């Protein structure tokens, strides 16, 4: 990557960090808390995604 592209990318990512920080803070302070079984209900499909991605990698090797 050329130097100007690296600097532009760094500035863009920096801007996204600045934009995202207040949202992250809001959701950490005011977001609803998980109830019983919520995290399992969220993690199971994400584990399924991990397994699916491994399958896709095996398909292209």
């Amino acid at each position, binding site marked *: *990557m050329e130097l100007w592209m690296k600097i*532009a990318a760094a500035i863009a990512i920096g801007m996204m960090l600045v934009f995202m920080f207040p949202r992250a803070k809001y959701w950490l302070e005011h977001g609803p808390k998980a109830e019983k079984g919520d995290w399992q209900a969220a993690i199971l499909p994400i584990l399924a995604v991990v397994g699916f991605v491994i399958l896709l990698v095996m398909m292209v090797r």
Partner: protein
Amino acid sequence: MNRLDFSVARPAGSTLATNKLIKNTYMLLSATLVFSALMAAASVMIQTPPGTYLICVIGAMLLGMFVLPRTANSSAGIGVIFLITGLLGFGLGPLLTYYLALPKGPQIIATAFGGTGIIFLGLSGYALTTKRDFSFMGGFLFVGMMVVFIGMLANIFLELPALALAMSGGIILLMSGFILFDTSRMINGGETNYIFATYGLYLSIFNLFISLLHILGALSSDD
């Protein structure tokens, strides 16, 4: 023997509004995805230079941060969302050109494309049917994105392939979480604007595709 029946009566208007929001969101999402794909194809055909990706992503990011919030409650918002998705699609051109040149390039792109579709449809279907509120994931997801951004910022200068691969893996997990989060917010009233809802889902799909492309491209070789 008394049997207590608990039933929750939801106002019919609220259900109608949610169904309308979901319908409008998925219709707009379909249209923007098709438009984005057409722009990507055009970009590949005219062989845009590598810097196009960065310029388009920065342009889309600025539109999303400063213009979309001001226009999302008017019909101009639809034009803006098409502009954003068109830019992102156009920026994909150099990336797709690079992957097409690899051994098994077309297979990698097709697998990433199909995989993204299946992941999105599966997670959306799950969020729509399970009726669970995944809003509790908000803080975790936004902090996770910030950690990924910091990693990406560092890797611009460190240029470590393993770190880049780890970032892509992290993005796939986070975007999967965001699909559950955004879909759940539509259902439970956390998001009432279909343009913002479309924007959130589109970005999840876009980032999922890019990251999947990266992982499949890196791991497709037996070397």
